[in-house]
């Protein structure tokens, strides 16, 4: 069975707190915290999705010396219409020549890449998954979206052989009915019907988590941690209630980084994993929902 060998992450050093953002947007800093659970976010100055992704990938690859056979990069905020950042990230990592695939899926892109990597790893060997986003530029004007987003990158390494986290099952879904509810036009800025997004995410995330756990034969009550796309603290709490587990079972770092779109789940994993002291047999459940709509969940077991 495929496994996850390592995680890595990188966030740019510049911190933008709610006071600074509130002054720019003409709103109240306490209101930002109340509606989002976010206190601060990171903003990239002079860095691209490529350089962010490279930093996260280096942090991940630094923990493992295995050869990489494929690079998969999710990003919804690449600076160019084409090519996407995958080939450039691979080149800067010294991995030029091996296939590098872009997955232009915001929010759920890292979950999709991770799930697909678990299937492709038997063919390509070790697969480096990178998720890298500069959301601050995409959502910098309109108050209700500008407060939510930040920049950053995450990465993980998927192997066909044994590793710390054995992947048991994954489930992916897409529904183009949600195309207009959340999208980034070519000439920006980000457009979001937050009510519609919340409506669908609130229903689809609990359902897909349940579906993936059922597929893996794992009772929800036995999951050690849920590593979910960090969209909004209120949404994370709502999903926890819907599947009847304590909110504390959902790792959250959204207070410090905001919503970093597809990067958020892997940034969360990279921060949580080294501190977790996982025991063999413990279950980790990944989940994400986002633009498209695309959503899914993946279940892994500690070895």
């Amino acid at each position, binding site marked *: 069975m495929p496994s996850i060998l390592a995680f890595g992450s990188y966030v740019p050093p510049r911190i933008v707190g709610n006071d600074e953002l509130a002054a720019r947007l003409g709103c109240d800093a306490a209101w930002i915290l109340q509606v989002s659970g976010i206190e601060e976010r990171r903003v990239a100055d002079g860095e691209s999705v490529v350089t962010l992704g490279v930093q996260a990938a280096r942090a991940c690859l630094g923990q493992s010396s295995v050869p990489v056979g494929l690079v998969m990069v999710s990003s919804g905020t690449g600076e160019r219409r084409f090519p996407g950042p995958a080939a450039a990230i691979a080149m800067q990592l010294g991995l030029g020549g091996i296939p590098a695939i872009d997955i232009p899926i915001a929010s759920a892109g890292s979950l999709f890449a991770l799930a697909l990597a678990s299937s492709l790893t038997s063919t390509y060997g070790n697969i480096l998954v990178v998720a890298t986003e500069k959301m601050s530029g995409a959502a910098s004007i309109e108050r209700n979206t500008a407060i939510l987003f930040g920049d950053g990158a995450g990465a993980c390494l998927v192997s066909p052989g044994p590793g710390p986290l054995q992947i048991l099952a994954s489930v992916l879904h897409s529904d183009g009915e949600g195309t207009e*509810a959340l999208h980034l036009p070519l000439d920006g800025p980000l457009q979001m019907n937050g*009510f*519609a997004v*919340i*409506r669908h995410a609130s229903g689809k995330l609990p359902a897909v988590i349940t579906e993936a756990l059922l597929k893996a034969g794992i009772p929800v009550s036995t999951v050690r941690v849920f590593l979910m796309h960090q969209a909004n603290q209120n949404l994370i709490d709502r999903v926890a209630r819907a599947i009847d587990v304590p909110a504390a079972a959902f790792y959250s770092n959204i207070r410090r980084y905001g919503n970093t779109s597809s990067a958020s789940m892997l940034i969360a994993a990279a921060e949580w994993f080294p501190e977790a002291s996982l025991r063999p047999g413990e279950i980790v459940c990944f989940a994400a929902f986002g633009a498209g709509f695309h959503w899914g969940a993946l279940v892994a077991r500690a070895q």
Partner: protein
Amino acid sequence: MTTTQQIADLVGKISNRPAPVAEDESLFEAGYLDSFTLTDFVGQLERVFSIKVPDADLTPRRFDTLARISAYVEKTPRVNRAGQS
């Protein structure tokens, strides 16, 4: 019971507060509804009034007051159990 009274009762239940009375009071500014409770509330509206609220209609302006919600419910076609108008 009028449509507006039924809607007010639903708002009260969703918000765990006494039902609002003023038909033109902003339910968001008064704290009855927010981004998350609105989605629950709309689900209740769909069930009680046998209507289907499309995503494009999910805007705060449309659901901001009892009067606006009542007008929306009155003009929205009822659907049968198969989801057809």
